[in-house]
Each structure stands twice: as C-alpha cells, then as structure tokens.
C-alpha cells in the first residue's frame, strides 16, 4: 500500500454552541481517489475547509500532516502553495471573463505587471486539452454550460501544480454525460499521480470511481472502507451515513389511491430564449397531469426542463411563449406569477437559495411568502395566525429547527427544501411542479421529501417532478415524460420504465 499523502488527526472544530467536528481522523493514500460521504451537515465541508485553510490554524484543534510535514495553514493561499486545491460546489468563476483569464486569475502570466496574452492563451489551451474541453481559451465563461465550467475549474486547479484536488459535489449540477466525462477525467488525473478527494451524494459514482470511502456522521468519522477489499454496497454506505439501514430508498405509494381526472393539460407549448434571439427552448410540448398522480420529467441538462416548468408557471422564464394551458379541461391564462398562483399552480425551484427562499428571513415569513393574502385582512397580516400556520408546517413536515423564527439561511439543504415545499403547499395548489426537489439533500431527508410528495398526491394534487436522477424518477413517479432538446420525446408508464429506455428517449435527437 502506498504511503499516506495526508493525515488529519483528531481534528476538532467548534463553532459557537456547536461542535462541527469531533476528533475526526482522515487519512488519504497517495495517488488514490478518496470519497467522503455523509449527510448534509455531517461536517464534510467543514473538514475540507479546515484542510484548505479557510479556517486557519488555531481555529481548530488537531494536526494536519501533508506529505510528511505538519501544516499550519493561515489561509487558502498557503494550502494552494502546498498543492492542495479545493473546488467548491458553487463554482468560483468570473462569468464575464474568458476561460484563460479565469484559469490564471490571481496567478497571471505577467512581465513587469503586464500580462502576456499569447502565452496565457497558449498555456490555457494546453490545460484545456488535458481536461478534454474543446473550447477556445478566449471564450467567455458565461457562454459555457455548468459541466464545462466544472472542467475549467479543474484546469484552473491544474495550473497551480496541484498535488491533491478536493472536489465538493462536483457532479451535483451535471447531467450523466458530463458526470461520466468528469469521472473519467478524475481517473486520468489519478493515473498522473494527482490525489483526489471527492465529496458526493451520488453513491453510484462513489462506488464506480473511488478507491476508499470515508463516512462521516454528526462530525465524527464513522468508518473508512476500502472499495476492493471490503464488500462495499450502496446500501452499506447509506446505513453508515444515516446510522440506520434504509430498506427502501423510496417510500411505497398507497395503492388504494386512484389516479383521477386530468388537472392540467399543456398543449403546443413553445418557448423562445430571452437572451438568444430566435432560439427555441421548448417546441410544441404536450403533456398532462392527473389528480393524485406523480409525473416525472426526465431530460439531460440543457434539454429545457426548468425552462418548460417556469414558462408554464406564469411565464416567469422565456419570451414569445405560445400554446395553451387547460385546467380541468378549461383553457386558462397565466400570464404572470400572480395569475399562475391564482389558478392553483405552484413551482418549487431547483435553486432554492437563489430562487426559492429569502435566506435572511425566518421560516415563518418564508412559509407565508406566496400566500400572504390568505393571512391578511384589508392588507394587514395576522401574524399570530401566520405563526400557527408556520408552526403547523414545521411539525407536519418535520423541519428541523428550534422555532419558526429560525433564519432559513442557517438550515440544512433538506430543511430549506421543506420550507420551500411548505410555502407552496400553503398556497393550496392543484398542480405542484417540483424542480429537482432533492438536489443537494442527504439520503434521510430525501426519503422524507418523497413521503411528502406521496402525501400530496394522496390528497389529490397533480405533481410534476423534474429530476436528473433517473432512479429517483423511477422510484416515485407513475408516469415519466422525457424531454430532449426542447421536445417531448417519450411518455413511459411506471411499469415499462427503466433507466436504459429513458436514457434512450432523453438522447433522442431532432429528426
């Protein structure tokens, strides 16, 4: 077995009132891909922040030994100098600058303060080739998709003579193709001798790519498994993560609930891009949702899933939208969000931090945000009633927070998602569109979200779930539509659906 490149010993990190890490020991062998698993809030990100110097030496207890030397990083620059580079979940690229500029940002190829652009772009091109990104170094970041941006981040890391690359949820926002490419790239880097640490919720990926996996729960190291020696299964990782075994990752539906009449029908829905003239995002889409039914919408990144959902939800995205909505068979107009809500539509966004929540306000006020009128008389809000409504949701959805006065920005992803759901459930919609309802949420909370979805369906709501994770759609949906390049390319009932078939439809090109 090769020597250890990194040993973190007895790391303890306390925040006022909370022990985020408690005697965590984390050992990474040279030249391996090492995965870290854990529920949200388990302490994975904190551990990586300690390692990369975001929390400088002195703010934590314990030792970091990197390549045989004890390190006392006082900032991220120190750790980068030693070759430890971290790529955060939220990408840190400047959208209006070019790929090359971003790669060498803060590390410019300059002579006497003047940048040598030819050399910069040439070096960038070389790096891009290494990460397998076929783009011109002068292309602006804003023109790239998330997957390609991720590759730019890796190229940037490689420009810094990286010894150890840490990736925090690198594939969370990627579609399967891009994910696969990224994982291939990581394998390639490993073969070049770069050690990788990867934080991920996607257990199948972890299983596919990593050599060892460390499981963290509640700020403590639970176990480190060797992929080849130990018999590692996804279920074993899950049970270590949550401290209990989840027999079924998807709750059962009550079979006695029947799917009823059609609630929403979308006909000939066409949406044009608001930024690029003439580009069609959605072309002649037709779909329908029925009472008590959970319908999935599968599609690769960029297929137009979110665009479809948002354009239906009060035309909140896209221009030049044509087509007709029918609710209970009658044509309706939803030209803005207010009208959409009035017609009983609800849309829970895929990006809850940017589009879903007022992060600096509390649970109570976020829950009431979309239906404040229900709590108000003549324009004045009854805050006692509001409080009891919010409190009711906190209990029924099991939002883990001491009170509804807790600030939503401080909740974990799963609990934030529950607040978003509570907000929309309180509008008492007939149709709920849930865009990536479990993105960035740990396994335990996912299960709870699925239960909520089932409950809503049982109450007779029509639900459209958009997800990048096919097993999730297969696990919870009655019917799945596939979307490819803005067209509905398939409609598969649950019994017939499987990943291969869906993928086939999702990649079906334009004819």
């Amino acid at each position, binding site marked *: 077995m090769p020597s250890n490149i990194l040993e973190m010993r007895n790391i303890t990190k306390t925040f006022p009132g909370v022990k985020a890490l408690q005697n965590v020991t984390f050992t990474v062998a040279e030249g391996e891909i090492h995965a870290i698993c854990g529920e949200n809030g388990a302490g994975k990100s904190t551990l990586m922040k300690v390692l990369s110097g975001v929390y400088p030496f002195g703010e934590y207890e314990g030792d970091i030994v990197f390549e045989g030397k004890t390190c006392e990083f006082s900032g991220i620059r120190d750790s980068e100098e030693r070759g430890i580079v971290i790529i955060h979940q939220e990408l840190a690229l400047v959208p209006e600058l070019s790929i090359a500029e971003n790669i060498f940002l803060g590390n410019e190829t300059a002579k006497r303060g003047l940048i040598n652009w030819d050399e910069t772009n040439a070096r960038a091109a070389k790096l891009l080739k290494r990460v397998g990104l076929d783009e011109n170094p002068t292309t602006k970041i804003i023109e790239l998709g998330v997957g390609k941006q991720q590759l730019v981040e890796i190229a940037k890391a490689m420009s810094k003579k990286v010894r150890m690359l840490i990736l925090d949820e690198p594939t969370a926002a990627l579609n399967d193709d891009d994910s696969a490419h990224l994982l291939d790239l990581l394998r390639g880097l490993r073969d070049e001798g770069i050690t990788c640490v990867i934080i991920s919720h996607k257990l199948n990926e972890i299983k596919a790519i990593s050599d060892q996996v460390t499981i963290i729960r509640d700020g403590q190291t639970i176990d480190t498994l060797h992929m080849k020696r130990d018999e590692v299964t996804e279920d074993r990782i899950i049970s270590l993560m949550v401290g209990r075994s989840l027999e079924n990752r998807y709750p059962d539906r009550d079979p006695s609930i029947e799917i009823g009449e059609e609630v929403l029908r979308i006909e000939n829905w066409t949406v044009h891009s608001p930024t690029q003239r003439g580009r069609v995002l959605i072309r002649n889409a037709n779909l329908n949702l029925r009472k008590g039914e959970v319908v999935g919408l599968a599609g690769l990144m960029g297929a137009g899933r979110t665009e479809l959902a948002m354009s239906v939800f009060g035309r909140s995205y896209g221009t030049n939208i044509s087509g007709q909505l029918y609710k209970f068979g009658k044509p309706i107009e939803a030209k803005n969000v207010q009208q959409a809500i009035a017609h009983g539509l609800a849309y829970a966004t895929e990006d809850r931090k940017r589009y879903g929540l007022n992060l600096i306000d509390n649970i109570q006020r976020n829950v009431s*945000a979309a239906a404040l009128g229900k709590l108000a008389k003549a324009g004045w809000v009854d805050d006692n009633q509001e409080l009891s409504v919010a409190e009711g949701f906190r209990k029924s959805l099991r939002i883990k927070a001491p009170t509804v006065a807790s600030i939503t920005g401080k909740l974990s992803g799963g609990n934030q998602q529950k607040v978003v759901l509570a907000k929309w459930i309180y509008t008492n919609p007939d149709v709920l569109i849930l865009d990536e309802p479990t993105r960035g949420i740990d396994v335990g909370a996912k299960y709870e979200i699925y239960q909520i979805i089932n409950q809503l369906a049982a109450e007779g709501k029509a639900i459209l779930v958009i997800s990048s994770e096919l097993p999730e759609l297969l696990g919870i949906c009655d019917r799945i539509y596939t979307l490819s390049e803005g067209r509905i390319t398939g409609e598969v009932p649950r019994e017939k659906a499987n990943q291969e078939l869906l993928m086939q439809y999702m990649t079906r090109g334009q004819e």
Partner: protein
Amino acid sequence: MASTDSSSKPDTEKPDEVTSEGTPVTEPTDEVTTKVTPKASDAVTAEEPVKVDEPVKTEDAVRTEDAVTVDGPVKTGDAVTTDDAVKTEDAVKTEDAVKVEEPAKVEEPALVAASTSSAPAPKAPAPAPKSPAAARSRFSFNANSLRQNGIYIAFALIVVLFAILTGGDLLQPQNLSNIIVQKSYILILAIGMILIIIAGHIDLSVGSVLGATGAFSAVLMVNHDVHWAIAIPLTLLMGALIGAWQGYWVAYFGIPAFIVTLAGMLVFRALTLVILGNQGIGPFPDTVRDMANGFTPGWLGNVALGSLGGADVITLLVGVALVVTIVWTQWRGRTARQKLGQSVESMTVFLLKIIAPSVVLMFVIVQLARFKNLPWVLLLLGALVIIYSLITARAVFGRHIYAIGGNLNAATLSGVKVKSVTFWLFVNMGVLSAVAGIIFSGRLNLAGPTAGNSFELDAIAAAFIGGAAVQGGVGKVIGAITGGLIMAVIDNGMSLLGAGSEQVMLVKGLVLLAAVAFDVWTKRRAGASSR
C-alpha cells in the same frame, strides 16, 4: 443668476449653521417661558415677539430669525452648570455670551437650582444606561441579537456620554425638544429612505425633491395667496408625482435607482431654481410656520410636578398613552405566542424590554412637557413612525418590501408584484419628501434655492446607522429614527461643547463607518456560527 443666488444663499444657509452652532436654543423667545410653571398663556405671548418679522421681505424674515438665534446661545442652564463642571475656554466663552443677555436669567435660578442641586441631570441619564448594561450582559453571547439591539445600546451610550460631557445640558427640557424638532425633516426623510433601502434601492434625490416641493408650496402660498389647506395637499401631490416619475424609471424601465435618483438630484434641484426664479421666497403664512415651528396649545393646561415645575397635561397624557400601548401590545403578543406554544423570552428580559423604553420615553415626555406643549412636528413625526412601523411589520405591502430586498428572485416567483411595490415605494418617498419640504421651509420661513442640499446623505446615513443592510432586506423604521437621532445628538452635543462644524462632520462620518463595520462584523460572526 449668480448674483441673486449668492444673495439668497447665505440666508438660507445661516439658519442651518445656527442650528449646528447655536443649537441649545433655536426658539429663543421661548427662553423666558422655558421653565415657568404657567405656560398655556405664555405660549401665546411667547410667539408674539417673533411676529416682529411682519416685514414681508424674505431677507428680513430670515434676519429676524437670525437675530433671534444669535441671542439664542443664552442658556441660563448652560451658564450655571458650566460653573459647576470643569470647563474649557470654549465653555467660558459661551458663558460670556450668556451674560450679555441677562433677562432670561432672571426667572431661572429657582429651577436651575432645582435641576442641578436635586441633580436630575446626573439622575436623568440613569434610565438609559440601565438598558444597555443589562441588555449587553444578556446578549453579548448572541451576535444576532447584538446586531439587532446594538443600535439602541449605542444610542444610549452616546446620549449618556454627551449628557455627562455637557454636564446634563443635553437632557435639559428645551434642548431635548430642539434635538427632535430641529432634525424632524431628516427623520421624516429617513422613514421613507429606510423603506427604499430595505427594498434594495437608494434615493439620492430626496434633498432636491425637498427643495422643489418646498419651493412649490412657497410659490403657491406666498406668491399666489393660495390657502394652506389647498396648497399643502397640492404640494404633497407634487411630491407623489415626482416619486412616480422616479418609480417609473426604476421599477418599470429597470434603471438602477442609484442612477435614476442621481439624475433626479440634478433635475429637481434645477426645478427648484426654476420655481423660485433663483431667489428665496417667504415668509409663510402663520399657520404653516406654526405647524413647522410651533407648539400645540395646552388644551388641558398645566400640572405641577413638584420640584420639576409645571408640565403640559396633554404631553403627559400622550406619553402615558404611548407607554400603555407599548406595554399592552407587547403583552398581547407574548401571550398570543405562548398560547401557540412558542417559546418566549424570560419574564426578566420581557420586563426589561418593556420597562427600558418606557422609562426613556417617559423621561423624554416629562422633559418636553416641562419645556412647553407638544410641538406639532413631533406629533406628526410620532404618527408617521407608528404608521410606518406598523406597515413594515404587519402590512402585506411592508412584508413584500422585505421579501424583495431579501431575495428579489424568490419574491418574484412567490407572486410578489415587485414592480408595483417598487413604484409605490418611490411615490411614498416623494410624498414624505414633500412633507419634509413644507416643514423645512416653514421652519425657516423661507423656501430657498439650496434648501435640502445634502439632506439625502443624512437620511441615508440615518438608515445605515440604524441597522439597514447595504444589500437590502434588513432594517426597521425605528432603527432609522434612532440612527437619525444618534446624528442629531452628536450634532447637538458637540455644538453644546463648542466643537466646530468640521469636528462634527468628522465624528458623524466615523460613526457611520463604525455602525456599518459593526453590522458587517456581527453578520460575519453570525454567519460563521451557522456552519
């Protein structure tokens, strides 16, 4: 153009200077009546001498005010207490000045003696420090509540500091009244400004709008003899139209408020000059002047408060009513929360939260009542504070402001009519600027071309000192008022101490920086503890 402008300029600016330098007394005629027990009648006679400014010419009017305020620094309380305290040469100089004008002194000794010997001055600040000390021990561990309450603690500390430095003069009845009344127009602007800042915008034009609306009202009332009951609504309408103009560009056209209102700052200053024809217009009808400068008649007469002397009954009743309202609403909220099974703060904290502001409020009220009847402006300001506090806390409209400032995208996707809310916020700001414009010009008895210059900066500073966040989504009306009062106390306290305007400016600038730095620091701490 330049000549007329320069001729009127000094006039309009003087009163301003006066307020900063001769702060202790701006209503010098009151001096005589200040501490005499029977007041209702005096109030009338006191106004009389001011009427000397019958001469219709503007300059005269202002000059009389000037003249009056030059006599102003006569503060007997000053003189006596400065004798007690160890004072600098400056203080001695003011004392000299004081001695020039004896008459005021005649009636004072008894009361001054009372106020110094029975020591209400050292006692006076006592209620204030109680709250910060206790609050701090309670909240020091919690960055978030420190952030929320820091402003009030800071305010209390600043008041105590200046009360001590000025030997209690700061808290003297008349001075207290002056602090509030003199800065009333800034406080009114700050109310509108905090709403705009919560929504994530800014308004740089309020000073110019104040000038333009003040000028408009002067032209109506002075040049065209329009009755004030018609002229004032028309002026408010003009404010609303100006606000609608700016609101349109910001909300519906999508230009950043910074740019729109920067343009507005120039445009409406130009409009002011056009309306005025480059000269000051005044004097205003008595009613308007009274509203801006005067006091309510003591409908219920006076009551003797022992050694404190006489006090206006109405003022006291208003104070008691306010305290009762505070206690009642707080108590109701607490019991309602308890009924819903919510955790509530412990009884001690709760009582402290009620008692501390009540005591402070009553102290201010008693001092005001001792000085004179309630100033009209204070009544108006109080009403605005209550109304806008309610709007921000309880109204759907207010909630939408916070939602927009907190996360614009989330608000849009939650069905908040973002554009309409933004538009009406600017209309509201325009109306409040017009209110401030009428009060300001009524107070000076003159609408001048430079009226309201740089008031926007004071209003913005008040909002940020009062805890608003630069990114929006955070802030309270009462915070902005406190921020404005902090600056007013610094202004007033430092001029009592004889500091120059450059020193005042320096201190105010640093206080603004410190307040926002504190906000950022506590936010960072709160943020760190969340992870």
